[in-house]
């Protein structure tokens, strides 16, 4: 699985987007998330299970002071 175009080493069966966010300690609230190019809304993060070959993008929308 790729996360932001980098190999994600901790993929396992049943891994969800929420699992990735927690594992990576992504605490910023404004995230834009896509799985294989398809937008996923925040309320679905706990339900979307990731496959081993998925391309996950979690973009933080933060552009500084």
């Amino acid at each position, binding site marked *: 699985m790729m996360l932001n175009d980098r190999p994600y080493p901790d993929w396992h069966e049943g891994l969800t987007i929420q699992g990735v966010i927690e594992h990576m300690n992504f605490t910023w*609230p404004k995230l834009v998330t896509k799985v294989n190019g398809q937008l996923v809304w925040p309320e679905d993060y706990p339900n979307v299970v990731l496959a081993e070959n998925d391309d996950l993008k979690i973009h933080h929308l933060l*552009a500084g*002071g």
Partner: protein
Amino acid sequence: MIQMCDVPRYKDVDMEEIKKMQAAHVLLNKVEYEPKQIKKGYTDKLLTIDVTDASIKISDIPAEVKEKFVGGKGYCLRYLWDATNPNTKWDSPENEIVMSSGPIAGITQYAGTGKMLVATISPLTGIPIDSNVGGFFGPYLKFSGFDALELKGQAEEDVIIVIDGNKGTIEIDKAPLEHLDAHLIGEELTAMYADDENDRKHVAVVCAGSAADHCDLSMLNFTFYDPRRGTVRLKQAGRGGIGRVFRHKKVKAIVCKYQGIKNDLNHVHDISIINKTGVKYHREMATQDPKQNNMRKIGTANTMKILNDYDILPTHNFKFGGTPNIHEMEPKVFIEQWLTQGAADGCWYGCSMACAKAADHFKLKTGPYAGNCVVVDGPEYETAAGVGPNCGITTPQVILEINFYCDTYGIDTISWGTTVAFLMECYENGILNKERTGGLELNFGNCDAALELLHLTAKNEGFGKIAGMGTHKQKEYFAQQGWGDMKFMNDIAMEQKGLEYSEYGSKESLAQQGGYGLTNKGPQHDEAWLIFMDQVNNQIPTFDDKAEALYYYPRFRTWFGLVGLCKLPWNDVVPENNSLTDEPAKVPEHVDNYLDLFYGVTGRRIDREELLVMSERVYNFQRIFNIRLGKGLRKHDAIPYRSVGPVTEEEYLSRQERYDGQLVEKVGYTKEQVEQMSLQEKMAATRTYREGEYEKLINAVYPKRGWTMNGVPKIEHLKKIGMDLPELIEIVEPLQNVEP
């Protein structure tokens, strides 16, 4: 949690004292004028005040200046250029402080429309510094009939300048009795020039603070009166030592008074567009801010813990990216224990973001005002990070106390935080010791020493004299004394072009290294803040991607400063459907809002590309201004290694897994080779690689910007963007083929 409804009003000033102060004024000059009505956001008038002979002049701003420079920062730089020459220093009489707000400034229908830009030749950098500031002064000056104010010369004794936009008078008075510290003189002059308490909100004051008489890190305070609290609030034009220039001219304050705020003082082209855009934005703010940044509850410091989580929060002079003690100062601590909630804390009318938070009736424990209960404006993120974790301090009470004293003394909290962090690292490395600091134990985290140093700096006593010099001059001084190795100090002193870094760790983001290094005024984040796009999102992986970002964002962000807008409403809240857009990071809907606002005010319809070109003209003008004053070439864009990679063994070891991994993944060593390398060899290889990457980045950025490999704007590019002014060509022509 402290609620606004429970906050008692502050004690009023002693009006008998105010009368004595006013009675001591000596009138030097007074003129009457007919305030020109604003038309489509502009007055097209310039006010020039020379305090050497107390002369006051009002002149027209030519149409060609308006076309090329737009307003705000553009006007500031244009008039600063015209007043100065290649030999002008910060303390030359001809050096000016120029202030201008911009055409959109002063509208009350959209958020963040009260900004003013201030520029001067900086005592820290020797080149133009620009700084933006909120508060009422910018709009009031325009409503009083002036798009820009230039302040020149040097008075013999302390003066104040008073502009009354309703009466149409400008006067310059000797003013011997008012205090220098901002929280005092702000109250004194507000009370002095208001007809009564209800009138105080019509008075705005620009002042510095007592440190500005000698400290190069000094800034300007801009007041606005808070009628609910019954006190004056302070906003800052912080960067680059503008307050030092102000006080060198012996100006104590500038007062602007204007009453009669209403919704169309700008006499805009089409108010319906502005109303519609504003209503849309305010709805978005109401529904999205609680789900996003909580700007209305805590302001910019909402990112404190976030940046700690992502290894970006500068800690111990930027050595590390976070502190294990962050829980002591995370946003909820400030919200629940310190910052007043339930107040619409905007620094200009109509700002629904309202992020100017305050700690009320804060009891000071140290310094000349110990025991007083004061209002503390902030802390902004930069302040909390800089005087906090970067100096090893995570105690909110101490951070707020430093915040207050920096403000009232007139010291820029960003430069102060970065300077003290540098001094603390020098202390811990033996470059400084108790003998050299006059007894101060400047270890990271020593709150008492940090506060004592601040008070000494304000008084220009002891080691405070050294602290007030700024980081660049400090390292030269320490080397001259034989106290430290210049190479090491160059590595750890977080300054470039003479300006201290603002408060983001850039080691793991090459694009942000450029975002700091490839700036005009020095390492301030307001041109390009790319850390998350680069380090976390990996959205700009190639040199070309990073170069494009370092071309786009400085141009886009410069535009805020041309027209009088605050940057925060652009992306500190975003539309709910922003993630569906092609480029969420640019917040396209808000960009379109700005195009509508500009059209609605000026009647001039521009598209996204024209917006960028407007900025690019001013951006290149500033670059050439730097070259005119001896900086602005490639060698001046070099950055300290602390901003690029690990300087010390301690830093490398703190992230050893990351750095070892990068030697394999990025540099090309095998795992086995890395395992056999000594720590010093690994650090050297990391340094060679990272410094090489920064040079490659420059090689990608300069052509994108239309510059030579030496960082000089090409004549053909200046022609393309319509900025081939003869005075610019004269500077760059001899440098067109000069190699770096």
